[in-house]
C-alpha cells in the first residue's frame, strides 16, 4: 500500500475514533442525572461515584476504538489494493461503532442498581395535531426540488454528447480514473441525492410524530420549550438537506463540467463555492447547537428536566432499544443519544429502519466495488 494511502487511512481512522468517541462520551451525559447512561440517578451519585465510572468508561472506550482501528489498518496493509482499503474502511467504521455500543451497554448495566424511581405518575399531552406541513418552508422545498431535478435533467439532455469514457474518481495514487459512460457512472450521485432527501425527510417526519409526553406541572411552559426545539430541529434538517443537495448537485455535475468544454471554467467556481458552503455550514451548525443548549437550559429551569420517563421496563440493552407492543408510537423520545428511537414492536419502525439501512448499500453501489 502506498505511503499516501496509509497516511490517508490513518487520518480517516483518527477522524472515525474522534467522531465515535465524542458521540459515545456525550451520550451518558446528554441528559445529566435525569438519564445518566439512560438511568435516572441522584445528584450525589452523578457528581460522585458516577464520575469514577465515567472515567473508566472513557478509558475503555478509547482503548477499544484504537485497537479496532489498528487491527483494521494492519489487515488493509496486508491485503493492499484500493477496493480492500475501502472495504476495510467501511468494516472498521462498523466495528468501531459496534465496539463503542458494547462498552456503553456494559457500563449502563453498572449504573442501573443506582436508579432513582420516579414517584409522580401524572402526565400531560398537547391536543395539537402535529403535521409535517406546519413545519415546512415551501420556498426551500421548491429550491431543493429544483436543485435535485435540474442536474438530472441536464445530464439526461447532454448524455448523448458526453464522451464514451468519462472521469470517475481519483485512485490511491491521486490519478484520475476514467470509466466507460453508463447509467451508474453518470447518475449514481443523483440517485444518492434523491435517496438522502428521503432519508432526512423521513427523519423530520419521525421527529414530528415522536411521542411528546409532558410533565403535569408547568406543562404549558414545558410544551413551549419543546415546540421551539421541534421548530429549530426541523429548520436544521431543512438547511442540512439544502446543503447536501447543493454539494451533491455540484459533484454529480462534475462529469459534465470536466467533459463539456464550454463549461469547464465553472469547475473552479464550483470548488470555491463548495468550500464557502462548507464553512457556512459549520458556522450554522455551531449556531444551532448553541440554540439547542439554550432550550435545554430553559427546560431544566421550567420543569427540572428535559425528558419525561415512561415505560421504563420496555427499554432494553442499555436503554437504547425500545420494544413495546402496547405502545402505538412508532417514534419514541429516548433517555440518551440523539433523543429519538424506534419502537421495534411496530412494523412501520422496521420499514423506516430498512430505508435508513439502505445507505451503506447505496454507497457500495456508487463506489462500484461490487
Amino acid at each position, binding site marked *: 500500500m502506498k505511503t499516501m494511502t496509509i497516511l490517508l487511512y490513518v487520518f480517516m481512522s483518527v477522524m472515525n475514533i474522534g467522531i465515535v468517541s465524542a458521540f459515545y462520551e456525550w451520550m451518558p451525559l446528554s441528559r445529566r442525572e435525569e438519564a445518566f447512561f439512560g438511568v435516572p440517578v441522584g445528584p450525589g451519585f452523578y457528581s460522585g461515584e458516577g464520575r469514577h465510572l465515567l472515567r473508566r468508561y472513557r478509558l475503555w472506550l478509547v482503548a477499544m476504538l484504537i485497537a479496532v482501528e489498528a487491527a483494521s489498518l494492519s489487515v488493509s496493509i496486508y491485503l493492499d489494493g484500493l477496493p480492500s482499503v475501502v472495504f476495510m474502511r467501511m468494516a472498521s467504521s462498523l466495528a468501531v461503532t459496534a465496539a463503542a455500543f458494547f462498552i456503553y451497554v456494559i457500563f449502563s448495566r453498572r449504573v442501573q442498581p443506582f436508579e432513582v424511581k420516579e414517584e409522580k405518575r401524572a402526565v*400531560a399531552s398537547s391536543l395539537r395535531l402535529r403535521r409535517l406541513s406546519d413545519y415546512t418552508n415551501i420556498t426551500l422545498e421548491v429550491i431543493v426540488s429544483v436543485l435535485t431535478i435540474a442536474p438530472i435533467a441536464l445530464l439526461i439532455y447532454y448524455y448523448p454528447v458526453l464522451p464514451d469514457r468519462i472521469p470517475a474518481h481519483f485512485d490511491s495514487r491521486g490519478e484520475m480514473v476514467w470509466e466507460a459512460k453508463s447509467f451508474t457512472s453518470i447518475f449514481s450521485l443523483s440517485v444518492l441525492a434523491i435517496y438522502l432527501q428521503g432519508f432526512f425527510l423521513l427523519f423530520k417526519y419521525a421527529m414530528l410524530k415522536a411521542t411528546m409526553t409532558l410533565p403535569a406541572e408547568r406543562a404549558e411552559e414545558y410544551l413551549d420549550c419543546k415546540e421551539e426545539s421541534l421548530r429549530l430541529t426541523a429548520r436544521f434538517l431543512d438547511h442540512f438537506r439544502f446543503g447536501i443537495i447543493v454539494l451533491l448537485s455540484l459533484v454529480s455535475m462534475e462529469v459534465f463540467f470536466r467533459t463539456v468544454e464550454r463549461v469547464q471554467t465553472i469547475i473552479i467556481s464550483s470548488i470555491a463555492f463548495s468550500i464557502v458552503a462548507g464553512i457556512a455550514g459549520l458556522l450554522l451548525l455551531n449556531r444551532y447547537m448553541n440554540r439547542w443548549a439554550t432550550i435545554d437550559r430553559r427546560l431544566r429551569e421550567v420543569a427540572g428536566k428535559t425528558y419525561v420517563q415512561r415505560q421504563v421496563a420496555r427499554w432494553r440493552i442499555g436503554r437504547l432499544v425500545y420494544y413495546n407492543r402496547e*405502545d402505538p408510537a412508532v417514534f*419514541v423520545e429516548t433517555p440518551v443519544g440523539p433523543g429519538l428511537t424506534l419502537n421495534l414492536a411496530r412494523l412501520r419502525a422496521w420499514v423506516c429502519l430498512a430505508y435508513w439501512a439502505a445507505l451503506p448499500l447505496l454507497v457500495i453501489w456508487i463506489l462500484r466495488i461490487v
Partner: protein
Amino acid sequence: MLIRVDTDDRRPIYQQIVDEIKALIAGGRLREGATLPPVRQLAADLGVNLNTVATAYRELQNEGLIAVRHGSGAVVASRTLNEKTEGELRKPLRAALTQLVLSDIPRAEIMKIVADELRGLLKGAK
C-alpha cells in the same frame, strides 16, 4: 391546550381523558370545528393503550360532542351534549356535592368552591 392524566387518580384513564376534553369544550378552549389529535398520537403521548383513548373518543362521540374521522383524529362537533334529562344531569353533581358535605366543609365554603369551579370552566366560553 393540554389534557392531564394521573395514574394515581381513582377514575379510569379513559374517564379522565373524557372529563378533560369536556372541560376544554365547556370552557371554550376547544371550539366547534377544532381538531383533536388521532387516537394513536394521543395514546402515544400519554403512554396509554390505543383502546383507552378510543374508548374516550367513542364516549364523547356518543354524547354528541365530537365526530371521529378514522385515521385523521376527531373534530369537535358541538358544545352541547346529546339530550339528557335534568335527573341525569343532576346525578354527577349530587355525587360531587355529597363528597364535599361528607368532608365536613361548611355550606358557604361549598358554594364558594362551586362558584370558583364554574368561573374557571366558563372563563373562555362565549
